[in-house]
């Protein structure tokens, strides 16, 4: 769902930049273009801050995220000034746990799930794509039909069904997200293999005795990298979205672990008038997904990747 449109404005911008600074390194070039694209730059800063907060949660969080304080239950956020306590900035939940601290600690799980999902789906996808592209014939047919089959169902639905069959858990969730995403990487790598195999310089290098492995690491993967980066940034967004959705329905991360999805799920039973239980975790999800989407748009524009 997070396939996005190419912003033509930025596309031309980045091309100009590329021409002007043709001699600069790819890295410097990318940084400059990122800085120029306001939305992507702000997103990058936001995500960087989030990672820092998640890594230093123990020192930053004002309270124990699991610390129950019955005397301070259901406190309002400070600025609403109705039955609030300045010790608890964003208020407390039904058990008196500090909402801000839970938000901060939940970001750890969000990052773990999202990054692992990208790594697993990327590795599986690259592997399948390489097999498909190099061996061809029936291997190719089987793998590509498998990908078609998987893309023939709404991926959130696959997630819900598989999670209810195998049970909830962190590993299970990562597996399920990877299951719904690997096909995109496989398709990219496969088409890159087929494209590269036909080129003259590769045929020449093969004639000189270059191995498949060399071919993969020298030609296929570097060429597929930009496309895979685009997919990866959208996978990150989708992973966060799915973690929240599945956890909300009790099928994701076990409820004892604070995650943004679980916080909204907890809020569901008691929220009647306690809007802040659900508001803040929802905002956290929205902004994080938004940031990854914007960053993905920028990667696509900057590297001029064609939408598939």
């Amino acid at each position: 769902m997070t396939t996005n449109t190419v912003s033509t404005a930025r596309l031309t911008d980045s091309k100009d930049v590329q021409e002007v600074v043709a001699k600069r390194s790819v890295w410097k070039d990318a940084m400059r273009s990122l800085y120029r694209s306001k939305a992507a730059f702000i997103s990058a800063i936001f995500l960087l801050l989030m990672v820092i907060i998640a890594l230093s949660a123990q020192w930053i969080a004002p309270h124990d995220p699991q610390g129950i304080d019955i005397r301070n239950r259901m406190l309002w956020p400070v600025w609403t000034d109705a039955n609030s306590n300045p010790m608890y900035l964003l208020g407390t939940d039904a058990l008196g746990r500090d909402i801000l601290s839970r938000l901060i600690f939940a970001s750890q799980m969000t990052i773990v799930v999202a990054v692992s999902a990208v790594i697993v789906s990327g590795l599986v996808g690259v592997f399948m794509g390489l097999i498909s592209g190099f061996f061809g014939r029936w291997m190719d047919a089987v793998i590509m039909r498998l990908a078609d089959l998987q893309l023939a169902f709404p991926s959130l639905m696959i997630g819900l069904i598989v999670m209810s069959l195998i049970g909830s858990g962190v590993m299970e969730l990562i597996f399920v997200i990877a299951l719904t995403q690997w096909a995109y990487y496989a398709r990219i790598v496969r088409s890159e293999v087929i494209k590269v195999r036909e080129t003259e310089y590769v045929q020449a290098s093969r004639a000189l005795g270059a191995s498949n492995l060399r071919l993969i690491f020298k030609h296929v993967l570097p060429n597929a990298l930009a496309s895979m980066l685009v997919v990866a940034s959208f996978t990150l967004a989708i992973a966060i979205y799915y973690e929240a959705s599945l956890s909300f329905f009790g099928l994701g991360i076990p409820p004892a672990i604070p995650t943004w999805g679980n916080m909204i799920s907890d809020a569901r039973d008691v929220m009647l008038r306690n809007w802040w239980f659900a508001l803040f975790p929802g905002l956290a999800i929205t902004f994080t997904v938004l940031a990854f989407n914007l960053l993905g748009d920028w990667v696509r524009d900057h590297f001029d990747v064609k939408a598939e």
Partner: protein
Amino acid sequence: MFYLLNRILQGLIVIAAALTLAFLMLFVIGDPAMMYVGPDASPAVLEEYRRNLGFDRPMIVQYLDFIGSAAQGDFGVSYRHRTDVVPIIGERLLRSAELALPAMLLAAIVSIPVGVISAVHRNSWIDYVARFLALVGQAAPNFWVGIMAILFFSSTLGILPSSGRADPGSPILEQARYILMPMVILSLMPMAYLTRMMRSTVLEVINEDYVRTARAKGLSEKKVIYVHALRNALIPYITLYALQFGWILAGSMVIESVFAWPGFGRLLMDSIRMLDIPVVAAGLTTVAALYIGLNLLADMLYTLLDPRVVNR
């Protein structure tokens, strides 16, 4: 023609695969006869049921029987409802359509004009607001938006019912009050996506030669945009629009659960959680068939609308 046949064949293969998965699911979660009679039944009763339901036959026979009956629209009996699966699914699909069809209509009504205005007045404040809202609409989890809407419109303002569906006999206006909130929230995701697509296709089309020609021959700007540019931009839009119905299927699982709407999505969700596998099997097959049908429809629309795309 060959292309179309090929696509239909591919679709049938996917449906057959979905059926196979569904069949395997029947056995993965445990003894299917046990699911009918419950864990407390005596071994004799269990054995009797197993024979009556045909679960004592060889797997391959059961498999072929399952595929054969499914092809005739028979998916067996629901563990939970104790009635035939297919009529339940049919009824729930109609209820889902009460939300899904107005939601898709709303998505079109909003996304087309907003996308065009956004593209024509590129980088104006209207464009920025529209793009920002579309981005947020794609990023905000729909179950959360649903909850916040219930909090605001039902708990705080008390103007809309928080969940459920009105009595079928009640006046139209009363029924509409129940439909309004889940319908609007269901439409947000396709609306956001389609608005962005509309904007970018109009931006592409505006630079085409025929639009320049239309301007050059002195047509009014309105005519250039709404007759020449829009009509061409609508071709990819309609294709994507058909595909968004597929997303609505997944979205309605979430939204119908949040709003306790007795539709297909909620049925599927409840059946998955309660491991009512016959319903899940039929539901999965329905989804696969709908999805493939929509994809085919989108393809056909595309070739129909754009004569430049020749039948491969």
